[in-house]
């Protein structure tokens, strides 16, 4: 069962998305802010990370950069999630070290497609 780390500060978003993904057969771990996200990501064991970009203090961009800088071992794919929906966000996410990008509100099928595409063995 693929393990996904969801980094999201909004409790309701966390609740909703983790439940929806669990229903689809993923094992979900959650981090509630950027620092926790970095720590949990570096602790390892994840097949994929869903990173909300607007987090307090250490935001998603910065957290991604830190993960990429500090990580050893196999590269875990990171999908950026943002409700800002600004043009250029995708490029910015890629530059920060993300592998894909999606906007909120989440369209679950679209997001599941992106997750599937990035999971090991599917690339």
């Amino acid at each position, binding site marked *: 069962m693929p393990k996904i780390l969801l980094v999201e500060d909004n409790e309701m*978003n966390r609740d909703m998305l983790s439940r929806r993904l669990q229903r689809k057969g993923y094992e979900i771990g959650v981090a509630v802010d950027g620092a926790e996200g970095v720590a949990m990501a570096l602790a390892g064991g994840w097949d994929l990370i869903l990173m909300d970009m607007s987090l307090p203090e250490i935001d998603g961009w910065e957290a991604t950069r830190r993960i990429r800088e500090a990580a050893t071992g196999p590269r875990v794919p990171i999908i950026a999630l943002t409700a*800002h929906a*600004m043009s250029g966000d995708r490029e910015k996410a890629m530059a920060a070290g993300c592998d894909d990008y999606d906007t909120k509100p989440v369209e679950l099928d679209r997001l599941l497609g992106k997750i599937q595409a990035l999971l090991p063995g599917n690339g």
Partner: protein
Amino acid sequence: MNGLTSAEAVGELRHELRTPLNLIIGYCEMLLEDATEPSQRAGLERALRAGRDILDRVTSALPSSRSEVTGPEIVALFTSLRAPQEEVQAATTGLLGANPDDPQWERDIRRIRAAAERLLTVEVPTRRMTGAATGSFEAPTTELPTAGPPVRPADILVVDDNEDNRAVLERRLGRQGHRVTSATGGRAALELARRDRFDLVLLDVLMPDLDGLAVLEQLKADPGTRDIPVIMISALDDVASVVRCIERGAEDHLPKPFDPVLLRARISACLEKKRLRDVELEYLREVDRVIEAASAVESGSYVVGGLAEVAQRDDALGRLARVFDTMANQVRAREDRLRDQVAELRKEIEAAKGATREETEANAPALPEGQVFAGRYQILEEVGSGGMGMVYRAFDQVLGEQVAIKTLRPELVRDPVAIERFKSEIRLARHISDRHVVRTHDFGDHDGTFYLTMEYVEGITVRQLIDQRGRLGMAATIAIATQLAQSLAVAHGEGVIHRDIKPQNLLLDANGVLKVMDFGVARLGNTSTGLTQAGMLVGTPAYMAPEQIASDNFDARADLYAAGVVLFECLTGRLPFVASTPVGMIAKTMMEPPPVPANLNPEISPALSALVLRLLAKEPAARPASGAELGRLLAELT
């Protein structure tokens, strides 16, 4: 309203709108995966459609390519979101409680509703300054829907059982500079409101433990919390609900979801009203303190400087407090002086003790001691006599107390018209109630002897005092004068003129309290010359004012002249005019200026000497106008 002019600011606004949309759409889709009950599916689908409708509007109004959006566009967008937002609420209302066995269902539906509510309370992010990057300067234009006049920071208690609602309010109010405390329910709110000081309470109506209306009632019933303004927040915005809140004492009512501009405006208005009310209450409290101080002055317990705090105000009340304090000081100084003067008077009285009783006149019809007169007055002793008749100390067997009885000479009461006039005067005199006036009880006749009964005062007359001491000191004289002035002020206020003020009619008890007797009695003998038909002197020419001697046409100022003669005599030990016959006395009174008291006794201060001369003025208009004015003039002497 100005718009947003940077990509970041527009992105921020998108984020604020899309985050709750994510929840509405996400939860609806998730619940639809499991829902089988057709009515539940219908409700969820309806809410989902409304959510997607909102998303479409947001996406088309704020496409990702846009980095600028105008104020009117923002307003138009928010306005267009209102209907679908209400649609989400309406669609989910019936879903609440639809799955009683599944607590998570209930929570999820509430989250959809909270998210929908949040949509219209979105903060429009403050416009970022973009000018700096290009080197040009634009005046900062940050007037946005949430902006308004600056708000005084306040302590606000937010009461809502819904965590998200609390979070939104905390964030929003915090941004406006307020200090926010949250309570998760009615009981907790009451506890906090009673313990801490709040400027405002925002109170949700629908709460599980103790609903908002009950909390409101308890807040308003408690004197400690009833002055805190309360704004009710409720999704129920029908007139009846609003009226219920207002009737129970709420300051205002905000419908949920609330408009941020409206929220800010109402909170500001509420706080301003509270501030003004506090200022007013403080003012009234200080007015109370001035009034209390006034009572304290009256009862002699005022502490100088007791109004120091109020006196620091720079308004009219502060000025009043300062003037009042000064006046209270003067009053106290006067009272101290009067006390010293009375003490001097008591020394004189002590020294005069042992004075022989006045010689009695043998020709008056005497009542023997031990006899019961008029069926109720047991005669105890004869205590004096005068032009009017004899005075006895007697025991009133009916009332069981001592009284003084004054019998009147038969020739004074021969004329029935004079009797009637006298009776009406006595009726007036009976109204005078003052510690410096001997109280008149009754007038009657018994076996052809007319008599007056009055309060019996143990003491000596000023006549006896002067005779014993030769003359009195300044302080003792002023003590007599001050008390005499007060009795005249009271009597004249009741329309009673004494007509026969003289040392024989002024009684002093052992404490130095002066009592004036025979108010109105001289009316009986009043004729143009002060002589009775039989040629008997009733008034006492030495103390009669010129106008009183000359005609019937005189007023209260005649009593002031007589007071002047009494004071002259106290200070100098002699009368202003000395003559061997009544006619000679009358002539001098009419024609001669009186001697200057200070020339006869160098100890007399020039001011007091001048005051006595003013009292002795031939022309009534040149004298102090009343007993009250004489009292004021005496108080000014130092």
